[in-house]
């Protein structure tokens, strides 16, 4: 979705919060459960000029993760920064 929106000229920010942060884990062997290596496509985000990639620090902490466990470079944010950052966007989708 982010890639498609960016492709059509939208200025996209991505927020990974709660279990959403698990998508970004570097060490995934998705083929063992017959899934595509979806996490590898996150590398395409910067190619599509999507540089505002925010990850909730608290969500990482609660799941025993740090930024070094993630497959791409991200901006870590605190929960209290979230609403102000989301408010900068005209439209919001939640998955």
């Amino acid at each position, binding site marked *: *979705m982010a890639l*498609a*929106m960016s*492709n*059509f*000229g*939208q200025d996209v920010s991505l927020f990974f919060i709660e279990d959403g942060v698990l998508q970004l884990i570097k060490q995934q062997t998705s083929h063992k459960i017959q899934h595509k290596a979806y996490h590898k496509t996150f590398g395409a985000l910067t190619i599509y000029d999507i540089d505002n990639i925010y990850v909730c620090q608290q969500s990482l902490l609660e799941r025993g993760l740090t930024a070094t466990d993630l497959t791409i470079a991200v901006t870590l944010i605190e929960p209290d920064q979230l609403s102000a950052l989301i408010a900068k966007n005209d*439209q*919001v*989708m*939640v*998955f």
Partner: protein
Amino acid sequence: MSSFTLLVTSAPYSSQSAYSAYRFALAAVELKHHIKGIFFYQDGTLNGSALQLMASDEFDLHNAWKKISAAHNIPLLVCVSAATKRGIINANDAEDCDQVHHSLSDEFQSVGLGDLAILLANSDRLVQF
């Protein structure tokens, strides 16, 4: 007057969400707002199935989508890749893939995510259900 795009990611009847989307659309057009389009994504694509048979004493959401679309010229758009993997395919795609049946109603269009981007660019607000 405002313009809206609705994003429906919920299946009919599994939760209230798709019905709420319909009620929102109805309320919006009654107040003369403009619904630019309704985009069905993920489980929401199941709303496009023509093979839904409702008991006569229950609300027929599928038929309601078709009526509001026709009455107010609101496009009903279904993400083709999300729909296809859920068995929601139009006649052309069914034929191309040698499938005997198709399931997407003629009133719904199979489109890509780019069409959602175009709707968003032309709408004041996006509301997701």
